[in-house]
């Protein structure tokens, strides 16, 4: 068999494998998207149609009437605040671990890795007590603090790795050029750490935006309810009305997909920043 045929067969094999993976990953999403745009009586129609013959936004309108924007705003506020807090603290922590040799540094690094491996479910009860004692149950602040606590280790770890790839000479040069260490960090190092910040920011954003378990435990008031919890409550409210439920699911995943599409090249270079020199 000639090598040309082997190569061609391999390519076909790769393609088929990838196609199957894509099918499995996307099929539920595509079905959800298509069904959320169908009139209610067509959703469970047999045979199902992938591209709806009749498109309606009625389900989305129903959601808007049921305070969709309020829940989205809650999620957005909590996610944005979490990302900001995580990056602010995580970037400085990662920088300190990357640049300074101080007593206890190895212990801190070990703690960071260890904390990352604790499942959130096992932390629910103690953190609930803590948040209750602080009087932060049913507040967005409480959620922001908890998400930050859960996600900070991964931010510190990614930023630590990314700062390690930025030569120390750059901040040394900036300091000799007349800048304090803080100004050198702000003017030279942080701008260069952009991909690392974006990658860790996306991790935090995804976790905070998608979180259901923590939010459902820590909040009960509708005023602070984030979107994933709202989707769950829609399930009770709409019963088996698939249209509004699917529309709610689509709304809750769309922003993350959009942000990943925009930032994906930074995400990859940020996460792998330690392995390859750019």
């Amino acid at each position, binding site marked *: 068999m000639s090598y040309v045929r082997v190569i061609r067969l391999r390519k076909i094999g790769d393609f088929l494998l990838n196609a199957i993976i894509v099918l499995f990953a996307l099929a539920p999403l595509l079905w959800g998207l298509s069904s959320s745009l169908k009139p209610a009586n067509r959703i469970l129609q047999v045979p199902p149609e992938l591209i709806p013959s009749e498109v309606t936004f009625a389900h989305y309108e129903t959601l808007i009437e049921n305070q969709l924007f309020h829940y989205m705003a809650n999620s957005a506020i909590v996610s944005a605040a979490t990302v900001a807090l995580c990056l602010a603290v995580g970037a400085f922590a990662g920088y300190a671990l990357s640049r300074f040799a101080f007593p206890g540094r190895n212990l801190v690094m070990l703690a960071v890795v260890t904390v990352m491996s604790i499942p959130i479910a096992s932390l629910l009860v103690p953190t609930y007590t803590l948040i209750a004692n602080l009087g932060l149950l049913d507040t967005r602040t409480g959620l922001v603090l908890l998400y930050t606590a859960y996600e900070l280790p991964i931010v510190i770890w990614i930023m630590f790795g990314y700062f390690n790839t930025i*030569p120390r*000479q*750059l901040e*040394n*040069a*900036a*300091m*000799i*050029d*007349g*800048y*304090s*260490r803080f*100004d050198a960090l702000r*003017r*030279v190092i942080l*701008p*260069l750490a952009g991909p690392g910040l974006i990658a860790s920011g996306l991790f935090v954003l995804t976790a905070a935006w998608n979180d259901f378990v923590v939010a459902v435990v820590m909040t009960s008031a509708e005023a602070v309810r984030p979107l994933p919890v709202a989707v769950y409550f829609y399930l009770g409210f709409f019963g088996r009305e698939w249209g509004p439920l699917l529309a709610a699911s689509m709304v809750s995943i769309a922003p993350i997909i959009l942000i990943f599409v925009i930032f994906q090249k930074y995400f990859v270079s940020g996460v792998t920043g330690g392995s390859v020199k750019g």
Partner: protein
Amino acid sequence: MTDVRFSRVRKAFGPVAALAGLDLEIRSGEFVSLLGPSGSGKSTTLNLLAGLLDADSGDITIGGARVNDLSPDKRDIAMVFQNYALYPHMTVFENLAFPLRARGRAFDETQIKTKVEAAAESLGVAALLARYPKELSGGQQQRIALGRAMVRDPKVFLLDEPLSNLDARLRIRMRRDIKALHDRIKSTIVYVTHDQAEALTMSTRIAVFDQGHLQQYGTPNQIYHRPANMFVANFVGEREINFVNGAIAAKDGKANFVADGLTLNLADEKRWRNLRAGKAVLGIRTEAIKATRDDTGVSAIVEQVELVGPELVVYAAVRSAQLSCRADLNADLKPGDKVRLTFDPAHFHFFEPDGGVSLAGIEA
């Protein structure tokens, strides 16, 4: 006054003494090279002066003021790094303007523009101001790094092996450019290098380091012709110096250096007249031994021949010792040929066998 002084400066990294009690004085306007192999303490010295490292003890002064406790941004120094450390997210213009925009330097935009353009002009990089560092060749990056250092007329310039990433030709050209720059701006320059040729060609004085100790501090001429010890003698020079173990002995009332197969008359050179008899190591550079097909001189056998352009370098065996020496191109020597070696006593160096200190001292 921008002289620089190290007094009893020590620095250790864990159990390793990187610098063991350095005393060094650099006068205002001098071009001083810190020369030595890796791990000799030369870069440590530079980083201590820059403020990137803290001394364990001792005083460092710039212009008479103690700077040990000043952070780098308050020392009014400029530094060129081995890897240039250009800011990759800034254009060449922004890179050059960066030191001028630091806090406490009240330059307005017009002044910054004028100064940056003047610096770029004088280094011949004015056409590159809009580029980013990654769009420049190594030589161009090198010039930008120099420009960023000189743009704000610092008291002291620190250069950390700035030419080591350039190819050989460009390195020799940049050597001249840096020397010309120093002649023009007359700032104090401290230049770290492991390349003895760079140190010899550019410096007013050279400080030779080894294993955390300053071995010798003097003009290029002194360092080359009056090495204080065997380390300096061997480290400085294009190729390794020849060391011959032997003894100084009187013969017929005249001083001689005697080794296996070798007797060299020292009486004609007055530096050697007062040497005491006893064991000694002779150091002699390739250019001070000449191999010929004449009838006089020390007998030797050619082992290897190198063409080095204007002449030949011959490795010749005298009994058990191998000496590198020079020969005329037209001598047409080949391995196995019998030659005679003639030595130039003015270029002898004698060292103690233990410790390697120069026997005749470093004075002319």
